[in-house]
């Protein structure tokens, strides 16, 4: 196989890499770029541990080819804190003990950040549905959901207009 040359932006840093055409973005991040914060829990898009944001859209890095990253803007857990300043979600996860083993934590943080950027006042149900693609086996989700709701509360500014609800759900 011929490797493909890719230029992209990761957490605001111009990044170039070459990869095999069938390598996933997750393989590239972890094995070529040494960014092991995104985890592989399943490799099939079922666990969300590899959640990253591509051009503003939350995706599983295991379900995207590295080749598709050309010219995109990618955000990973490694870029979530602003220098020494933690993102409010990161701080709340610590405060609420919203992690036990911590392997799902990067994915949850990236996914929750993406939610709060769209909806600064989510209901508990909206948080739970938005995060349904992130599996956690340690916490039973309780403290994670509380941490996200508490972050939203803190981050909310009264003047800020509300964007449309994150995801609507129909129940059978």
């Amino acid at each position, binding site marked *: *196989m011929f490797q493909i040359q890719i230029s992209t932006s990761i957490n605001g840093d111009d990044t170039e890499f070459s990869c095999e055409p069938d390598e996933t973005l997750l393989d590239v991040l972890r094995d070529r770029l040494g*960014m*092991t914060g995104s985890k592989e*829990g*399943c490799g099939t898009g079922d*666990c969300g541990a590899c959640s990253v944001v591509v051009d503003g859209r939350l995706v599983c890095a295991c379900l995207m080819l590295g080749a598709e990253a050309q010219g995109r803007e990618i955000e990973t857990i490694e870029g979530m804190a602003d220098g020494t300043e933690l993102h409010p979600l990161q701080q709340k996860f610590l405060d609420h003990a919203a992690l036990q083993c911590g*392997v799902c934590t990067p994915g949850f943080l990236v996914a929750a950040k993406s939610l709060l950027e769209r909806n600064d006042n989510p209901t508990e149900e909206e948080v739970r549905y938005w995060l349904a693609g992130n599996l956690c*086996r340690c916490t039973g989700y309780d403290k994670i959901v509380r941490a996200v709701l508490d972050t939203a509360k803190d981050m909310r500014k009264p003047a800020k207009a509300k964007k449309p609800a994150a995801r609507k759900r129909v129940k059978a």
Partner: protein
Amino acid sequence: MNFQPGKDTLKREFKTVGTRTPRPDGLDKITGRAQFGADMTAPGMLWGLILRSPHAHARIKSIDTSKAEAVNGVHAVVTSADFGPCPDDVLDVRENVMARGKALYDGHAVAAVAATSRAAAKQALKLIKVDYQVLPHVTDVDEAMKPSAPIINSKLFTKGLEKTPRKPSNVAERFEFGHGDVEAGFEQADLVVERTFKTEATHQGYIEPHACLASMGTDGKGDIWCCTQGHFMVRQVCSALLGMDASALRVTASEIGGGFGGKTTVFIEPVALALSLKANRPVKVVMSRAEVLRASGPTSSTSIDVKIGMKKDGTITAGDATLRYQGGAFPGSAVPYGAMAAFACYDLKAVRAVGYDVIANRPKQAAYRAPGAPMAAYAVESVVDELCRELKLDPLEVRLKNASSDGSKASYGPNFDVIGLRATLEAAKTHPHYRAKLGRNQGRGVACGFWFNFGGETSVSLNVSADGTVGLSVGTPDIGGSRASIGNMAAEELGIPHDKVRCIIADTASLGYNDVTDGSRVTFASGLAAINAARDAIGKMCERAAGLWGIPVDAVTWEDGAARPSSPNAGKHEPLTLADIAAQAGATGGPISGHCEINAEGAGVSFATHLVDTEVDPDTGHVKVLRYTVFQDAGKAIHPSYVEGQFQGGAVQGIGWALNEEYIYGEDGRLQNPGFLDYRIPVASDLPMIDAVIVEVPNPGHPYGVRGVGETSIVPPLAAISNSVSGAAGVRMTELPMSPPRVLKALGRI
């Protein structure tokens, strides 16, 4: 200086213990820099992949690896031939990590390759030619026990019978526990209910697949980096399998992405080590999710009969259970613990539990949070619930009436020490949840659970730095925040702020032997050892103070982080803080450290009571969990947030087990659902908040009263949910998981 259970008084006033301090590994885990099993690389590293049997049961006639070896980039191929003689106690492990002669389950490893890229390794795997002779297989526990079942191991003769049988079978061992005259007990009952239950195998479902990086040189020395609940166990087993000196192998425990018992054994580490030895290069092996589900260690699937007699006033007159646990292709299911734990919540005059350890063509089961107990509790608590409903008795009152209490004789033999079952029942009784109104198609379930909790071999080292800060090395991998708890106990004992103590997990070369992180033992045993190590260091610091003051050491006492004269008679001396003494350590006799090496005794058993409300959709059989409250005895909650976390996590794993998680085998003996798509662990939207009520009945065996909390929380949910669904549906559920088709069938709608 070590704590003497039963002699020393328990500490009840705390400064650090009981507070919700930030965790020492927190920052690494929220920024993505924590290093888990698969996150480590080494110079010259190769990728290892494992070829697995597609057959449930097959003779391996031959394996031809020549074409695989010829692939460019391939540096080593191993099969069972690469694992030589080994001690008897690891024979089954040797066979489980690499099939010898026969593949015993779908997913059983048969060969492995190491190559410079994953692509090359993948290509090589495809070129390994295995000639199988497919044999008849059996995966169901009841089928496996039948005389007509295919025999999996012709050398297996049932143990534990009066006479060892002459014919081999799939029943490895029979166990019996109990006391009193069960038949006489049933005669005294006003109502006797007898039911048979079945539970399907579940998986621990840790999000991090097994991963390791092994490096083995031709000089006989090796290193392993891996995610494990016990790196000393990895060292012992791997060195035994590879025929090397234990101390020549250093194992470092990475951060571990969940274990729940599933990482208390080895699957890939010896294979990676063998590949590394052959290639003379470091080798990384990472399981895929499918490999985790097919070839690590799920729970037993079970079939259980329970018979219980009750008087009209709610007194249980006798209990009898027969438990059949299939534990995969090797003996060693969790049935003895199931049989021991089945009736542990009840103080019974007549009780019997008989267990059968059964083998089948499935992966060798591994521990999963209170191994064996949830299924047994499910069966027993279901029957107790049915008796309560039939006799129109309050399920909490009946449990209070029959509950095990201090000094009562446990169903598995010994007498209980101080226990907290009643306290959890009382807490449930007075909780608003118990009185909340239920709507249409809704039901409330109650169930209790028990786990033994362990102590075990533990070694801790505590080093006082010249600046008055403390390094604490423990040897029990941290699977849920134990570094915070153990560090806080050391800080409490030393009388210094928690953030002056840094607790780490030391590698196998740096610390004495430690048993694995299992049996809810770590906060208890490593905590106890840390307290003892702190006391050891305090003793030394008191000696230094005594020397500086020129008074006898027994005239020095340690209080609030400083050495002080113990009485006015000892003279007037300004207290010397830990930092003061540390600063002069070199000049007063050298470095100061404290140690503790013990086989920790005095672990206190733990009980829990769970309350759950569910709603059943009568048209679809879908079950929604509406409200869930856990009441559990923690003895003393060192870090309440992580105690709550254990309660919540265990409850939710139990909810998954009760409702949707199951191993599904096809007619061909292959696992049908080896992925998180169809192995359905609960997702966030399936659940309500899980209320956690911490009950504290101090364990006299720990200086602060700690009881293990990790495991008991998964014992009651199966029964609690089933009792709730049975109430909502108006029909007794007797099979797990209660998937929608099963519920709808029980409702008579299909």
